[in-house]
């Protein structure tokens, strides 16, 4: 246990708190006490993460075998992901205080909610591939109860499907890890790759195969094409705040894993121009296009947002697959922006379900009369996702497109941006109808149902509206003042490529 | 000529006389006389064995002071001594074990006839072991057959009588062939005594004359004795004979009689026809093939049997197949394994038949599977006896079956092209043995099912003879299994000087 102990805190505190919440009897009975403790722990978690990020350094927790160690470490990428996770988790936590009053067994939800954030922190800070894999598996197991919270038949079935896809992906990646362990002394992440060329002499083919396996394996969590089947079934089934976190942050764990493997273990230049890179680009573009097409035709709001997640996360993977600096910056910025926007969208969907019980988009005509302020935030987030200039989406898409054009990957360099544009159009196609129907339901719309249920002007409670507002504002502000974020990302890209 | 040397002669004549005397005695006295006689003859044979071990070579014994071409001759060596002792022990325990059952099966006035047959049987067996003259061998073979037929039909049940007649017919076929073989041999060598016949046969083989008649002799004598000992293709009389005779009779018939003929066959191969020209004449391979098929087919038949006595009989067919496979291997070591298996099989088979008696007593004298279920609990000692017998048959370590299986396997190593078929068939037949023997052992110890016929769940204590016999047989089995080294060594030396 040598090294900086502070790194351990953001991981251990929430897990311990979660276990206490799960086991404690008093949390079952008194709801106010439960939600209070949970929010307080989330705030503490946010503070601890900031402290850990500031203090930096590294820590080896456990020596499994003489070469395998479980270690934590802080570098720019983990700083970015850690801060993003902590802040968004806090906001969704606040939101779920109000949202969960409509569900039963809340203590179980909040218990696992806290544990998952601890595990995510561990994943962000992990210093070598083995620790990353450990936390990756633990995250799957601990996030499973979030998915099957409602314990309806489809929820359990979707949960199992989620588990088996993620475990299948993990084992595919494990094949790669076995190989990499054979060809490198220790799998600690160092920018630009850590494999020694001597051991790699005869095994290039095997290296490419294992790299592709790891990309597809970790891609399962990010909803990339071959193993994306679980995402559209698992997310809508979970409670809104859980599916928000699942879409926004847990998919980013898959992205972080791929970044670590490609840029910090194998090294980008080993994969440049190989069939692995081409295959990867093809998969991402396929997912982008397919995701937005399916979202466009999906009537149920939460399913539509789930499909949108599939395509948006593949934007990020596409950026990573370009293996050049600008695309890398675009990809990482899209990670941040998409996470913020997707949380906002899912939380609004949750708010709509809570107040009006509508789940399908055509039911939501005249939403503007019911909750104008929430719909406004939704519209800002939607515009940001589509990539309209002032909002943040535009920045990341701009870098992605320019990166792709200058990446020199032959046909992909122009086909990529084309697919991105088409998909942006589709994004507009499946996000904006809600706003248009909401505010301008058309003259024949009498809104008798709204009058009958006296829904007019019934905004969700402040607990729910505040986080949505903050998120929408963040989506907008990041678009206007991306300077500091982009410069930080450019420094990472320079170090890695 | 020390006094010990004429012990073999004494034992044969003693057995013969006790048979004749017991014709006038009552059943009980005949039985006691017969038991005493068997014990004495076994002691005499042990004496000869010790003498031969001390001197280390076999000696011819002239009968009635007439030199070789006219007078008759017996020859005693280490191998004959060991076999005689072993046959005596097994005979004694078989008779002792089946004592009460013979009393039940055979009417009062006919009991002494039973013991006459037993005595004649023993004398003819000893004669087969010791004799050095071919025609005497034929005569004692006939005495043996008649005594055996007598033992089978003494039970006066319909099935045993028909079994006796079939036994008689098949044996007559065998003896007829054996006799014609002897006559042809006498025709071309002019000798009936084995040692001079051997020189003339060797001379003939060297000169290459009479090659066809030599082949005919080998074939006819081989097939004749194979029929009599129940080798696979000629085994149809075995299930009825061993199945429906009295327990002592079936133990003696399966354990000793068929072994006596095989011993005679080995003696003729060694002492008359010469082992090497036997190998060159491919006769050995014929026996090998019959042995291999016997091993597998015998067990296959046994699996389909529901009556346990017939099942054990079929397993004898398989075990005789083992012995002929041993002879057929064509190596010196194979012959040692075959002879050792003669002892193992006679001890184990007799143990199985005798302990089966105890089991039938405990399950209302019915012999099929269903009624035997749970018999192991009702008669514990018989159950243990049968289990030890089956395990030895399957070749379980620490028991005699394992050592004979081991000897067969190591001897198979020497003959290159026969190595793999032997080992594969050995493994397959062990599995088949396990299937039908251990299936019965499991039924012995499994709970009675509600739909079975109600049999009183009371513990049955069979008579002390049976229990003593079972214990001694188990002891013999363990001795053969654990301290087999001296016995195997004796057999090897005996075979060396057998020729």
């Amino acid at each position, binding site marked *: 246990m040598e090294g900086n102990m502070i790194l351990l805190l953001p991981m251990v505190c929430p897990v311990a708190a979660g276990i206490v919440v799960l086991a404690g009897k008093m949390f079952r009975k008194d709801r106010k006490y439960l939600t209070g403790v949970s929010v307080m722990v989330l705030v503490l978690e946010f503070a601890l993460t900031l402290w850990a990020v500031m203090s930096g350094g590294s820590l080896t927790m*456990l020596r*499994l*075998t*003489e070469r*395998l160690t479980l270690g934590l470490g802080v570098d720019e990428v983990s700083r970015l992901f850690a801060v993003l996770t902590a802040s968004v988790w806090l906001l969704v936590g606040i939101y779920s205080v109000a949202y969960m009053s409509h569900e039963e067994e809340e203590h179980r939800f909040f218990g696992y909610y806290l544990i998952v954030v601890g595990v995510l922190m561990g994943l962000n800070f992990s210093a070598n591939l083995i620790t990353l894999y*450990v936390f990756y*598996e*633990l995250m799957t*197991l601990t996030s*499973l*109860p979030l998915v*099957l919270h409602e*314990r309806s*038949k489809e*929820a*359990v079935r979707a*949960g*199992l499907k989620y*588990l*088996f896809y993620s*475990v*299948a992906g993990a*084992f595919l990646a*494990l094949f790669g890890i*076995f*190989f990499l*362990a*054979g060809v490198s002394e220790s799998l600690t992440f160092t920018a630009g790759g850590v494999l020694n060329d001597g051991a790699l002499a005869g095994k290039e083919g*095997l290296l490419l195969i294992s790299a592709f396996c790891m990309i597809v394996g970790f891609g399962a969590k990010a909803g990339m094409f071959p193993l994306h089947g679980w995402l559209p079934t698992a997310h809508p089934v979970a409670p809104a705040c859980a599916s928000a976190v699942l879409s926004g942050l847990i998919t980013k764990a898959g992205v972080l894993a791929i970044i670590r493997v490609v840029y910090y273990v194998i090294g980008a230049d080993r994969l440049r121009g190989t069939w692995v890179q081409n295959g990867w680009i093809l998969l991402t573009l396929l997912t982008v296009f397919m995701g937005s097409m399916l979202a466009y035709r999906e009537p149920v709001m939460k399913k539509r947002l789930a499909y949108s997640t599939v395509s948006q996360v593949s934007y990020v993977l596409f950026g990573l697959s370009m293996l050049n600096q600008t695309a890398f910056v675009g990809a990482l910025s899209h990670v941040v922006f998409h996470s913020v926007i997707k949380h906002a969208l899912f939380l609004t969907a949750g708010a709509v379900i809570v107040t009006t019980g509508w789940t399908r988009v055509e039911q939501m005509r005249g939403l503007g009369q019911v909750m104008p302020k929430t719909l406004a935030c939704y519209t800002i987030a939607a515009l940001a996702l589509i990539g309209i200039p002032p909002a943040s989406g535009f920045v990341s898409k701009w870098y992605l497109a320019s990166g792709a054009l200058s990446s020199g990957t032959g046909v992909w360099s122009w086909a990529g941006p084309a697919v991105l544009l088409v998909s942006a159009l589709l994004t507009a196609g499946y996000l904006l109808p809600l706003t248009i129907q909401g505010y301008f339901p058309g003259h024949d719309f009498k809104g008798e149902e709204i009058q009958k249920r006296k829904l007019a002007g019934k905004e969700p409670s402040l607990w729910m509206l505040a986080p949505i507002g903050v998120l929408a504002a963040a989506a907008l502000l990041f678009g206007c003042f991306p300077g500091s974020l982009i410069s930080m990302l450019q420094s990472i890209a320079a170090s890695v490529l | 000529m020390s006094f010990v040397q004429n012990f073999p002669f004494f034992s044969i004549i003693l057995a013969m006389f006790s048979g004749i005397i017991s014709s006038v005695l009552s059943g009980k006295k005949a039985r006691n006389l017969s038991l005493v006689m068997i014990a004495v003859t076994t002691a005499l044979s042990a004496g000869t064995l010790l003498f031969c071990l001390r001197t280390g070579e076999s000696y011819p014994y002239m009968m009635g002071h007439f030199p070789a071409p006219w007078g008759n001759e017996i020859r005693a060596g280490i191998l004959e001594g060991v076999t005689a002792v072993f046959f005596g022990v097994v005979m004694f325990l078989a008779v002792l074990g089946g004592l009460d059952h013979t009393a039940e099966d055979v009417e009062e006035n006919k009991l002494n006839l039973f013991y006459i047959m037993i005595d004649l049987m023993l004398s003819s067996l000893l004669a087969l072991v010791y004799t050095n003259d071919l025609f005497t061998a034929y005569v004692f073979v006939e005495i043996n057959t008649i005594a055996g037929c007598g033992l089978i039909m003494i039970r006066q049940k319909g099935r045993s009588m028909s079994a006796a007649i079939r036994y008689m017919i098949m044996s007559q076929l065998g003896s007829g062939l054996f006799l014609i073989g002897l006559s042809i041999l006498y025709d071309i060598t002019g000798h009936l005594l084995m040692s001079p016949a051997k020189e003339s046969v060797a001379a003939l083989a060297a000169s290459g004359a009479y090659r066809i008649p030599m082949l005919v002799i080998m074939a006819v004598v081989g097939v004749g004795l194979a029929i009599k000992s129940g080798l696979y293709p000629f085994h149809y009389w075995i299930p009825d004979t061993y199945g429906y005779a009295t327990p002592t009779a079936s133990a003696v018939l399966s354990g000793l009689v068929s072994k006596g003929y095989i011993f005679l066959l080995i003696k003729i191969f060694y002492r008359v026809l010469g082992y090497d020209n036997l190998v060159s004449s491919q006769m050995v391979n014929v026996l090998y093939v019959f042995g291999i098929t016997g091993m597998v087919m015998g067990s296959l038949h046994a699996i389909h049997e529901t009556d346990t006595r017939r099942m054990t009989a079929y397993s004898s067919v398989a075990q005789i197949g083992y012995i002929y496979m041993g002879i057929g291997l064509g190596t010196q070591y194979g012959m040692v394994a075959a002879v050792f298996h003669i002892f193992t099989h006679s001890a184990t088979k007799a143990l199985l038949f005798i302990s089966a008696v105890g089991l039938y007593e405990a399950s209302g004298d019915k012999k099929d599977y269903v009624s035997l279920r749970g018999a192991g609990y009702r008669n514990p000692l018989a159950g243990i006896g049968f289990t030890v017998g089956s*395990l030895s048959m399957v*070749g*379980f*370590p620490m028991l005699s079956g394992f*050592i004979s299986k*081991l000897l067969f*396997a*190591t001897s*198979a*190593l020497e003959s*290159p092209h026969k190595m*793999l078929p032997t*080992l*594969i068939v*050995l*493994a*397959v037949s*062990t*599995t088949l043995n*396990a*299937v039908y023997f*251990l*299936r019965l052992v*499991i039924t012995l*110890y*499994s*709970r009675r099912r509600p739909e079975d016929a109600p049999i009183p769940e009371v513990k049955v204590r069979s008579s002390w003879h049976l229990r003593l016999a079972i214990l001694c047989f188990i002891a013999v089995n363990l001795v053969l299994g*654990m301290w*087999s*080294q001296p016995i*195997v060594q004796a057999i090897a030396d005996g075979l060396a000087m057998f020729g």
Partner: protein
Amino acid sequence: MSEIILALPVFFPILSGIFMLFYRWGKEEWSRKRELFIEGLVVANSLLIVAAIAGGADGDRRIVLFRLYSALTIMFKLDPMGSVFAGLVAFLWPLATLYAFEYMKHEERKNTFFAFYTMTYGITMGIALAGNLVTLYLFYEMLTLVTLPLVLFPLTTEAVRAGRAYLYYSIGGAAFAFIGLVFVLGFSAIGTTEFIAGGMLDVGRALESKNVLLFVYVLAFFGFGVKAALFPCYRWLPKAAVAPTPVTALLHAVAVVKSGAFAILRLTYFSFGTEFLRGTWAQWVVMGAALVTIAFGSTMAVREVHWKRRLAYSTVSNLSYILFGAAMMTPLGLAAALSHLVAHAFMKICAFFCAGAVMHQSGKTYIYQLNGMGKKMPVTFGCLLVSSLSLMGIPLFAGFVSKWNLAQAAFDSGSGLGLVGVAVILYSALMTGIYMMTVIVRAYFPSLAGQTEAAEEAALPGGVDKDDQEAAAEVVTAEDGLTDPGWKMTVPLVIFAAAILVIGLHSAPLISFLTMIGGEAG
């Protein structure tokens, strides 16, 4: 004198088992006094073994009991590999016996059960300490004989059928392994079949009839493989799941099947020797069979609805991990095989004991009857969670360590089939994830519409045979009277779960010890 300590742990339990069979205690059938006696006896024997191992396990301490036949002696020898298996069994047996006391509370004929149970302990120790192939073969055959009454214990027609299948497969397998024994005796360089690290074949003579010897090696591999549930002859293991849980757990997860795998390791590394076997067609045949079993076992496990049969199929697949490690014929392969042997023993016995605890408390044996038991039996299902995660190969647990070693050995051996092997192992790990986690999810998060779905799942064709149908009819979620079993059951469970965690977290000393064995014998 110190060599006697080698023979004592083998014969002490056997003799005491026989003593227990015949000696009727007081009037009453079963008393705590007898339980204390048996437990004390077993613990004493374990201490004996630990003392023997502590006294130096470098292979030169031996004791020749008696000479079975000219070149064949019954001999015990304590070498590192034997000490691993002996130590493992010594650690597991007392806990299993403790568990069995509680489990067999309502059964009758406990005396015969515990007599044979203890005798099996001695015989397994005999296999572990065997110095040459003959002693190993002797105890291997006796193991079948002694464990047969345990499989037959319930004496229902199903148990008798299972016992019969077990017997035929084992005796058949031993008969073919016998051929291997004979050839090793025939071709051995030192005249006897003693185990020498790195093989003891007289290479000169062996190379002439190389193909025959390889064919015999494959025969012996499949012969011993019967007990290790290799593909063609694995059917007896799921059938034997009908026996009481202490039997299925200890015998069919640890003692019996591990003896088969241990015998194969001895045969490959200590009799035939790896130089002779490496790169030959025999190695590919053997490794292929192991891989087929791995895939087959775990796929069948997913389809099986009866819980213990599912665990039995899982054992079939996991055992072939060990055989896959052995078939690599490299020092690392042996170390990986041994690490999985140890890890799987703990994982599987913990899983079987959980199944046994649930059966003991609620009588439920089918997976669709386990709805909602997680909260009612927290300790049992906690341990089940640990063992399932470990079986799946999740890091921080023992399963991951052995999978890691197997994969490293496969990559290091560089053979194409080795890589396919790693892929098959990962496929089987996924299947393990499916069939273990469905149990866990059903126990902790039962779907509220549980009843209808469970009944409909019970009616699914194929998975459930005839006499399970009426069992499926009365499907009900866990009734409220359900609690964790008594301390005698929960303590072993917790110890095993802890052991899995300890091996998972701190496996460095164990793995270095095993690599030392591998290096020496490789």
